[in-house]
């Protein structure tokens, strides 16, 4: 949508920042202006941006990124339990751990490409999930999810009943009731939590933009368009791929950490293959390879999950109360197939429609709308920019 110049980039970045920061007002009219959903937009947006660095640039389709998200969440809650309820140490440790885990899995998985790579990552993630749910329960607390508990009484260390929090103890922090995650005393739930996630999203977006414009980004794109040619010219592509994999794993770890920061609980289902699949869907739906697309896709899917699923017949009757009774009943009974418990159906139809008519995802759709307004300019140009911006 924007010219591929430095100035265009800065403009894009400025607009993106403004939109994210003003999100509480902008999204209020569509019922999304409350902290939890906006946090989810930001967190999953970040997750998808990171995923896009791997998939959008190199074309390597990972089906196991949820594992890094899970590692980030578990690491964060463990840091809350061991060190401090302050989020900074937890976030740093989580990103590093997720990065290391990604290094390990990436090193093995990147020995293969294509669908074989996808299945390898899927296999690793499913193994992580299955173990976290069962055998590793002492570490993950299984189905119930890993939770923060009150400080243990002196001398007793049993993480089912009490936590350590060495740093908090050293600084003499006093806790009342359920311990809350905080940033130097600012609690990290609600709006402050959203702004923390928003800051992470903006920084993440900025880094992704710089990567995409750097020579490293060029190299990644070259891998996507023709890896063989690169190999023949004597370039070893593996280190580049591994770097991209680890970076996107760290993004996932950061997203997982933020999930635990805004809500200190980590469950194993975050690592299930469906969670990995979700980020794939977000990215493709928004527009793989674009900068804005993944954020857009993540927001749309989370919006459906939280808002569409909550519309029930009562709400529909209220909305259409201006219609005569008979017509109202018919309209409501038809629409209720698509909302409430039918929200999955709407999402499935949306996937199909988008991929059939807008192969470049929502970003291509936006590009087309923009080009409609710029009738004079070449429409295809805009669409193309939409895909590669």
């Amino acid at each position, binding site marked *: 949508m924007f010219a591929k110049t430095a100035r265009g980039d800065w403009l894009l970045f400025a607009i993106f920042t403004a939109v994210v920061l003003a999100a509480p007002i902008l999204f209020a009219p569509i019922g999304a202006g409350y902290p939890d959903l906006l946090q989810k937009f930001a967190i999953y947006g970040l997750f998808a941006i990171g995923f896009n660095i791997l*998939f959008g640039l190199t074309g390597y*389709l990972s089906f196991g990124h949820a594992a890094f998200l899970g590692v980030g969440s578990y690491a964060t809650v463990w840091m809350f339990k061991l060190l401090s309820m302050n989020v900074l140490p937890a976030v740093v440790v989580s990103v590093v751990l997720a990065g290391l885990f990604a290094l390990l899995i990436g090193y*093995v998985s990147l*020995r*293969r*490409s*294509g*669908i*074989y790579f996808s*299945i*390898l990552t*899927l*296999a*690793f993630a*499913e*193994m992580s999930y*299955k*173990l976290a749910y*069962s*055998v*590793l329960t002492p570490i993950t607390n299984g189905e119930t999810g890993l939770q923060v508990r009150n400080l243990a009484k002196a001398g007793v260390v049993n993480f089912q009943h009490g936590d350590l929090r060495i740093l908090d103890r050293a600084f003499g922090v006093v806790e009342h009731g359920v311990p809350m995650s905080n940033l130097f005393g600012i609690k990290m739930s609600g709006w402050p939590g959203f702004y923390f996630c928003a800051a992470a999203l903006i920084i993440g977006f900025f880094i992704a933009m710089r990567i995409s414009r750097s020579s490293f980004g060029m190299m990644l794109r070259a891998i996507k368009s023709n*890896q*063989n040619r690169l190999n023949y010219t004597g370039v070893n592509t593996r280190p580049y791929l591994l770097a991209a994999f680890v970076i996107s794993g760290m993004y996932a770890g950061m997203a997982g950490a933020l999930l635990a920061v805004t809500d200190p609980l980590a469950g194993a289902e975050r690592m299930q*293959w469906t969670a990995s*699949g979700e980020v*794939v*869907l977000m990215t*493709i*739906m928004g527009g*793989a390879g674009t900068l804005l697309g993944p954020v857009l896709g993540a927001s749309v899917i989370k919006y459906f999950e939280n808002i569409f699923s909550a519309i029930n017949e009562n709400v529909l009757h209220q909305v259409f109360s201006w219609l005569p009774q008979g017509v109202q009943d018919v309209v409501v009974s038809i629409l209720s*197939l698509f909302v409430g418990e*039918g929200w*999955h*159906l709407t*999402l*499935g*139809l*949306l*996937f*199909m429609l*988008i*991929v*059939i008519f807008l*192969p470049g995802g929502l970003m291509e759709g936006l590009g087309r709308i923009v080009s409609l307004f710029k009738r004079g300019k070449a429409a295809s140009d805009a669409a193309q920019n939409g895909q590669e911006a």
Partner: protein
Amino acid sequence: MDAILLQVLNGLDKGGAYALIALGLTLAFGTLGIVNFAHGALFMLGAFTAVSFNKLLTLQKVVLDTAHKTPWGDPVEIRTPYVEAMFGDFGKFMVDWSVPLSILVAIPVMLLIGVIMERGLIRHFYRRPHADQILVTFGLAIVLQEIVKHFFGANPIPQPAPHIFAGSADVGAWLGLAKGTIVYPWWRLIYFAFSAVVIAAVFAFLQLTTFGMVVRAGMRDRETVGLLGINIQRRFTIVFGLAAVVAGLAGVMYTPILPPNYHIGMEFLVLSFVVVVVGGMGSLGGAVAAGFLLGILQSFASMNEIKSLAPGIDQIIIYLVAVIILLVRPRGLMGRKGVMED
């Protein structure tokens, strides 16, 4: 000893199911190059063909009995199946045998579904990236599931096997062991035999007929076959229909083992992909071999003796094997070089 024999038998039985499910997937992939995430949904549709057929047979005439009331005050309904009323004992027989009889219904139904899917949707995605194929077929799978959920609810619907197959067979006695040491459910033995027959039929079709020869040639080199003036497109449509039939039949016959609900396909989706990749993408023989290999390994990993050595191994064995095979033998057990590597 008998414990091990029993686990082998169980592994073969599981393997038969895995192979059958993976066969349709790899058939569609090998010929059309389509990564079909709706394959699980086809399995589910097959299972629900059996459910619908059974429902149809047990359609009941409802008479309201005003003399008796339910606790909430409505008259009690007296139901008699139409089939029994019309055909008597033969009707009862049909109801009892509804699962095997559903095969006859499922073949044309699934063929039709497969052909419509290919003509209406899949065809437009041959040249699109795999990611797009995944998204569109995944979307389709969700839509199909939700439609089934709307009509059948989310709760599993039990489908009993014909009465004479309800019990177990004393396999041990056949092998000359003491009576009752190895007993195995009749229906599972039948499922195993059924999958063997279907697999053999698909192979025979591809190996022994001219049609199969053309398809196999198309799998190797589509362009050249096209240049020879053969309408490979139409044949591929039929192959996709065939894949749908195989998936559907796998679903029909599986209903007595696992009461189907609308979600049953998703549970087999990941598994069938793993089987296909371990076997080698696009290799029919590979899919079958991998199905049996994974079935037997999973069966053994669930033995208490092995679990006590490696806790949790039964949870991850399939994925662990997949990782090892892909690292040691990049193209899977029997895959051809260069398939799906870019």
